[in-house]
């Protein structure tokens, strides 16, 4: 277990609304080995962000973790008090968000904001903290760190703001960084810079990363192992190469085909029929069945994850029978 940074087992989180319980995270298990980048991919509303927030214990009312365990370096996070969890956040596990503008305080200099994070967790002087912040700024590729230290968020570009967020998240050298769509709001050239930066940090700071994205390209570029989520559940998990080469779940296949078919100009694009389901009106059995082209009688029953090859799990009855190709 020494080489596992994060172990999430059977995690479930729900929102209790007037219209019923919404199972946003439904029996999710994730393993993050040390020094790895794990991807969670899925479309809007599939529960990928809620999984991340549950791990951070940042779910807001009426959302609640209803079951399962989250162990960070062997420490059970679900058993911690709020105060204890606040110490873990930022120190051992941190998170960066999609929109760096809304996550930064607009009326505080960015340097101070990052400094605040380290002063909260370390007993050091302000001067030492500032030194540490400037060092971190350099590490995440912020040019002219002294000048940027005194800037306000609105004075910086989107890419620089995201670098500031990463500096803030990394300043205490956490064991785990959760990045929720970190490049979605950025331009492609900046996205490439940020992805390279994250890969570098994994190697130099010894931090494991959970990267959440809807973009299969981003996932393919940096992740070692990928979880595909649909309607609150993991529907397929495999190492990145296997997943892209041999997807087994009809939903994963559909996603891959959607992206791949863009390469051929003269065809009609592959699509997945229908739209992402409403979590309040899920069908019985497999949640993907109404959109699935390979649906059969067995799909009416709830599906469990089946190991089709070592470390390749698929939540589909039919994947048992399908062989390569």
């Amino acid at each position, binding site marked *: 277990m020494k080489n596992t940074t994060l172990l999430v087992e059977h995690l479930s989180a729900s929102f209790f609304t007037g219209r019923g319980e919404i199972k946003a995270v439904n029996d999710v298990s994730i393993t993050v080995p040390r020094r790895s980048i794990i991807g969670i991919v899925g479309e809007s509303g599939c529960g990928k962000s809620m999984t991340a927030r549950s791990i951070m214990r940042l779910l807001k009312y009426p959302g609640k973790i209803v079951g399962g365990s989250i162990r960070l370096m062997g420490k059970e996070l679900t058993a911690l008090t709020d105060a204890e969890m606040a110490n873990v956040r930022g120190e051992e596990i941190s998170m960066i968000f999609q929109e760096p503008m809304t996550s930064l305080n607009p009326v505080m200099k960015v340097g101070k904001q990052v400094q605040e994070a380290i002063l909260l967790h370390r007993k050091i002087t302000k001067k030492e903290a500032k030194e540490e912040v400037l060092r971190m700024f350099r590490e995440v590729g912020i040019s002219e760190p002294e000048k940027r230290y005194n800037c306000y968020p609105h004075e910086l570009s989107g*890419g620089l703001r995201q670098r500031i967020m990463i500096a803030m998240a990394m300043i205490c050298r956490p064991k785990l960084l959760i990045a929720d769509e970190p490049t979605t709001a950025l331009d492609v050239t*900046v*996205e*490439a810079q940020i992805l390279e930066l994250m890969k570098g940090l994994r190697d130099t700071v010894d931090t494991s990363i959970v990267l959440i994205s809807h973009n299969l390209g981003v996932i393919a570029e940096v992740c070692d192992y990928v979880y595909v989520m649909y309607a609150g559940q993991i529907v397929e998990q495999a190492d990145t190469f296997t997943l892209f080469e041999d997807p087994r779940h009809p939903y994963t296949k559909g*996603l*891959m085909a*959607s992206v791949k078919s863009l390469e051929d100009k003269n065809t009609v694009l592959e699509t997945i029929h229908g739209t992402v389901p409403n979590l309040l009106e899920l069908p019985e059995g497999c949640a993907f069945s109404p959109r699935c082209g390979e649906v059969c009688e067995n799909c009416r029953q709830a599906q469990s994850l089946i190991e089709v090859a070592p470390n390749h799990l698929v939540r589909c009855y039919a994947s048992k029978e399908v062989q390569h190709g």
Partner: protein
Amino acid sequence: MDKKILLDVQNLKVEYALKGKKKVSAVSDVSLNVYENEILALVGESGCGKSTLGKAMIRLVPPVSGQLYFKGVRIDDLDTKAFMPYRRQMQMIFQDPYACLDPRMSVRDIVAEPLDTYKICESKEATTQRVTELLEAVGLKEDHLYRYAHQFSGGQRQRVGIARAIALNPAFIVCDEPVSALDVSVQNQILNLMKEIKEQYGLTYLFISHDLSVVRFIADRVCVMFLGKLCEIGDTELIYNDPQHPYTKFLLDAIPKADPTQRRASRLLLPGELPSPVDPPAGCRFHTRCPYATAECKNTEPKMKQVKGRMVACHMFD
């Protein structure tokens, strides 16, 4: 091949006023042609002026200078009334399907609005009939007529936006990031629909997007913008297979590939930050980030010239 020019844009310049006397020139001195029945994509990063250029081309924002010729007729100096017959030939599809539909109007009223403005149909019944046909053309049903925007998914809303755009049988549609807000699985449905509608109605699109994979699929020609200027314009395959302008090279290399076997050990990373559009660099606007920049690039602005079958604005090819 004999291509007919639909819209001829000459030396278009658009500025936005800032506090004090400062100005941002969002589009500076852009000239380009849009040919009939083509899909011309406008790509570039946020803030490069692509949306402003798109809007200025159909007179949704006023230019500071420059001329627009639509089917040979100068339209930029027409007054509102004289412009009316041209306005109906130019429509727009917006990025955010949640923001571009009035939440208090039924789908029937949203799509009927342009028909009423131009008094296309003789009676209310005829209008409803026409709206129904339009909804069916975009893959919606008659049952959807009296529903409101919030009752639809993102993809369906974008279909309503398309129905509204084609209601007046336009010739030219500016599509500003039409699929960026949609999920991958739904995005392709809308792209297929847009292609189908284009053939059926004989449309011409200006397709503004930052998603370079989508652009490659849909566009006949691509126009690359950087900080209010055009860098490169030409046939899509030509540019994607063999980009000439240094900025185009960086841009295309940055696209993440959905294939882990194509991972590169190192990538071309664009150095530095985007310069401020309030105070753009002199000479070539890309020179502060360009690894090939010379003294000339700092002083003189490059002109568009023919290079390998497309137009490029770079001193490398002088």
